[in-house]
């Protein structure tokens, strides 16, 4: 587990610092998820030669339609909270909570920055520093399946149940692939700790930063693909499919529906964070040693760099979502089991071989 401070310091400092870090990480996730609803609308609008949602205004002040986030929240909270009479009410309520909590808990394991020396002790900027952070995140992402299946089952509707089953089949298939994919880079880094995996990539080779995307390009592409499928984002949004497919949350309304919607965005953020950590060097900025920063400034730069990279991956995910048409379900499973999984295993074998050759 996380080594506490070297010097003797009161326990409440650690507890308070940890609570603040977790609150900041979750707040960051929720804010970004709300912001992503706006980004999704505006980005799709601009790249399709449209304007996008811009009618919500306060005193005639529209500000690029950013108030739609606020109006959405008000609308979702004041809508009728409908539970189908033929369903199972407690589980119907529990399902979105499980989905969203699992996604939120993943966020706390992302390494937002390196450790910083301050006041005579080391402060770890990872909200929950874990030696097995990768396993933690992957396990919690798969807890999201419970929310999906539970929503389908507790709705008392056959369509919702089928949607839940589709979701379960898809997410479990891609979990297997995800594990096989991250095995390659993790074998290379020799750790399951996300912060150490990010720190490993700070090394350079003749000026070229040895990030995961350079050493493991195949794993990077596979990880993004499988991650988009695991988080149910388009072009793999078969479990819910917005307007076209009746999905597992067909019987949901109001804020519970919004929680499922937010879960997708939160999982996207987790995926972007994992991609940044495992493949884009985490908080490492090439050439940052020339800036002459140290201590808290360097740590702050690291956090900014990490968040910027995370936003970049989110932008790429959005762009893919508005570029590709949706896969058919058999194509989806074929892609997962027959293409991504074998390629990931080959990648793992080649990585293991290369590591033994060059180390």
């Amino acid at each position, binding site marked *: 587990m996380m080594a506490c401070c070297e010097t003797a310091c009161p326990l409440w400092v650690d507890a308070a610092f940890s609570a603040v870090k977790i609150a900041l990480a979750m707040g960051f996730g929720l804010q970004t998820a709300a912001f992503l609803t706006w980004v999704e609308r505006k*980005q799709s*609008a*601009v*790249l*399709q*030669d*449209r*304007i996008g949602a811009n009618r919500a205004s306060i005193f005639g002040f529209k500000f690029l339609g950013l108030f739609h986030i606020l109006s959405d929240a008000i609308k979702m909270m004041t809508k009728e909270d409908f539970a189908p009479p033929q369903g199972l009410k407690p589980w119907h309520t529990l399902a979105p909570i499980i989905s969203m909590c699992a996604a939120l808990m993943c966020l706390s394991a992302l390494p937002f920055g390196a450790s910083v020396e301050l006041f005579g002790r080391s402060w770890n900027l990872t909200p929950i520093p874990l030696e097995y952070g990768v396993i933690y995140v992957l396990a919690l992402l798969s807890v999201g399946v419970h929310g999906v299946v539970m929503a389908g089952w507790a709705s008392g509707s056959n369509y919702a149940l089928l949607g839940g089953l589709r979701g379960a089949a898809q997410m479990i298939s891609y979990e297997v692939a995800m594990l096989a994919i991250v095995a390659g880079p993790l074998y290379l880094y020799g750790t399951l700790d996300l912060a150490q995996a990010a720190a490993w990539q700070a090394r350079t080779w003749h000026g070229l930063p040895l990030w995961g995307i350079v050493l493991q390009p195949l794993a990077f*592409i596979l990880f993004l693909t499988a991650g988009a499928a695991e988080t149910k984002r388009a072009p793999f949004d078969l479990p819910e499919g917005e307007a076209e497919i009746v999905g597992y949350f067909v019987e949901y309304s109001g804020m519970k529906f919004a929680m499922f919607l937010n879960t997708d965005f939160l999982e996207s953020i987790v995926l972007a964070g994992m991609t940044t950590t495992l493949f884009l060097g985490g908080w490492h900025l090439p050439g940052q040693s020339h800036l002459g920063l140290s201590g808290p400034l360097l740590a702050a730069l690291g956090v900014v760099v990490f968040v910027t990279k995370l936003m970049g991956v989110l932008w790429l995910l959005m*762009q*893919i979502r*508005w*570029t*590709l048409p949706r896969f058919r379900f058999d194509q989806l499973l074929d892609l997962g089991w027959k293409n991504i999984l074998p390629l990931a295993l080959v990648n793992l074998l080649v990585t293991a071989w290369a590591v033994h050759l060059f180390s």
Partner: protein
Amino acid sequence: MNAKHTVAKVRRPEVRFQEQIYLIEVWKGLVITTRHLLVNLYRHLSVALGRGGPAGSVTTQYPDDPQVTAKRSRTRHRLLKREDGTPRCVACMLCETVCPAKCIYIQAEESPDVMVEKRAKTFKIDLGMCVFCGYCVEACPEDAIRMDTQFIAFPGMTRKDLIWDMPELMGDVKKDPKPVKAVDPLGPAAS
């Protein structure tokens, strides 16, 4: 009948390997969408900063901005009058007969003018049913009905509001909101 007829072979595009692995196609698609995104962002920014240039979107923000229609668009009907102010319509029923949407209802009566003989007692057009084909204008032997341009906004709260009678059609009772902006599809040189 000729037994030896040839069948034209349609060449189906073959799925090649570089399309099958799909990644190159994804990349091509991303290039297209990203180009749209960047170009449109630049244009939005250019317009917002007052530097002009083409608009970043093709959207017409209708209630705020005027609707743009073609300069020769056929919109609401207008019944014309003689010089003495009586309607030109002689209730010959040609427009009602030719109307494909069957949205014209005419009741004829005897005209006090012996040279005219017949006139319309009521002349109603259901604009909710009209398809704006302009056949009534073509059919009219008296040049009594024409179509205005650029008047496309004639809303009503009920279906009955969309049935216009003679005073409205002749323009005696104003039902027109402000006319919309005209644009010549052939360019300014053609007008």
